[in-house]
């Protein structure tokens, strides 16, 4: 791996770590439930980006499937929580 690629990967991972910390702060301080769900939505997206970057670091394509699964289940989780906020129950 060339030094340019290595440093850009480290920079991107640092940015994503900082972004996850900021989203976690919003998750903890978020005044209402919908703010917390929004922060959780951002948090799973950033975790998915971290896994994509780790797939480039370790040169393995199985990280890609993990990222796809996180994208899938994150959407399901956010939709279920929004439905819970709307109705008070998920499956009616």
């Amino acid at each position: 791996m060339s030094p340019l690629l290595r440093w850009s990967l480290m920079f991107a991972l640092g940015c994503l770590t900082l972004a996850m910390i900021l989203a976690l702060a919003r998750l903890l301080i978020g005044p209402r439930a919908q703010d917390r769900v929004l922060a959780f939505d951002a948090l799973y997206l950033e975790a998915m980006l971290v896994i994509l970057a780790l797939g480039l670091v370790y040169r393995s394509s199985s990280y890609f499937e993990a990222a796809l699964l996180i994208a899938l289940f994150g959407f399901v989780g956010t939709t279920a929580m929004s439905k819970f906020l709307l109705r008070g129950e998920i499956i009616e």
Partner: protein
Amino acid sequence: MTTAAPFWVDALTAVLLVLGGLAALIGALGLLRLGSFWQRVHAPTLGATLGTWCFALATAAQVSFARGQPFVHALLIPLFIALTAPISTIFLTRATIFRERVARRARAD
């Protein structure tokens, strides 16, 4: 994955990674700093669109040159996010509208 990619592929990947990381960081900063929920709901979409597309294109470029054949599966992720992120945002904003209406009615009574 043994052959080294040419320099321009590494440079393209580096630009895409830096851009995607900065987009995710700016989105999270907006999520933390903006004032109300209706302003905050816009911020993370920066990471969901620009960040995801940049990372997936970087992955596609690197893996394509490492394998010697086009690897477009990585673009499934941003396509999927582009389909699902508006749906979850609409659900969340509808829930917020409902909850604010309930809270206003409870305050009025």
